[in-house]
């Protein structure tokens, strides 16, 4: 079976109810800059992983395992995964 390259993107965000002083600071700054109507800002992180896998599904399973084991801390964070095929020669 040929193994294609996949891009796993893990979006990791502070859980609801978890303080996010960084998000609060950014919101304060957006307010100060005069952007109207800014209601809520939350800061998280995105981790991109290029991986060789037999299928998109296999890559996703791997992404879930990576998040559960290392990338996200379930006490304070939620994560969202997206998986896409990496095009030949792409530098992502």
């Amino acid at each position: 079976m040929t193994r294609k390259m996949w891009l796993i993107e893990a979006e990791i965000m502070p859980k609801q109810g978890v303080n996010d002083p960084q998000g609060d600071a950014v919101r304060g700054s957006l307010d100060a800059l005069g952007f109207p109507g800014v209601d809520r800002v939350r800061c998280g992180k995105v981790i991109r992983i290029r991986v060789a896998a037999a299928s998109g599904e296999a890559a996703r399973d791997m992404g879930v395992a990576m998040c559960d084991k290392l990338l996200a801390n379930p006490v304070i964070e939620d994560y969202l995964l997206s998986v896409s095929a990496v095009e030949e020669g792409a530098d992502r």
Partner: protein
Amino acid sequence: MNAAFTVGVVSFPGSNGDHDAIHAFEHQVGVGVRAIDYRESDLDGVDAVVLPGGFSYGDALRCGAIARFAPVMTSIRAFADAGGPVLGICNGFQILCEAHLLPGALLRNQSLRFHCFLATVRVEQADTSWTRGVAEDSILALPVAHGEGAYFIDEAGLAELEANNQVVARYCDPDGTLSTVANANGSVGSIAAICNTRRNVVGIMPHPERASDPLVGGTDGVCLLRSVLLAGESALT
């Protein structure tokens, strides 16, 4: 000097409190010390383990998240599971939380600033492996040095900690009252230190080992470090 008792102090890449801890245990507590490298798996029969402060693995991803998987942690988990006394100081506390040896997590300080000053804490539990020699309600002046020191646990978790008397110390004013000023990092319940249900694993954000030499930082931390010498029912079986 109690040569029969040996404390193992673990060094991870990026630890910076390891030598403070080694010095404190050797000179102020007067016990044998074994420096343990994070790649080792044999604890050589040490009587207690300390995970020191610092920035293991440069705090990459989350504080303590990478150190949790260091080879030595397998042995430390087994040691803790057998009832061996384990103390995590600052980054060591973060590592113990990431390793699920203690509940909760440490978040960015509410102020977003690195905190480096002398804090006061009230010791609330005198029956853990690391507070046995401390009178309940003792107020100790201990230095803090952290950017991610805000203890977090959800409401249900906090209720469980309180019900099980697992909150070992809280930030307080010098007279012992709790206040938002004293709880500078924004920890839930003003929590500065907790223990596991078996009470042999303790995590503390302030640095008792940096308050152990009369020449620098006072000596309020020695009573915590010395507590491990007092045998209790949770001592290694």
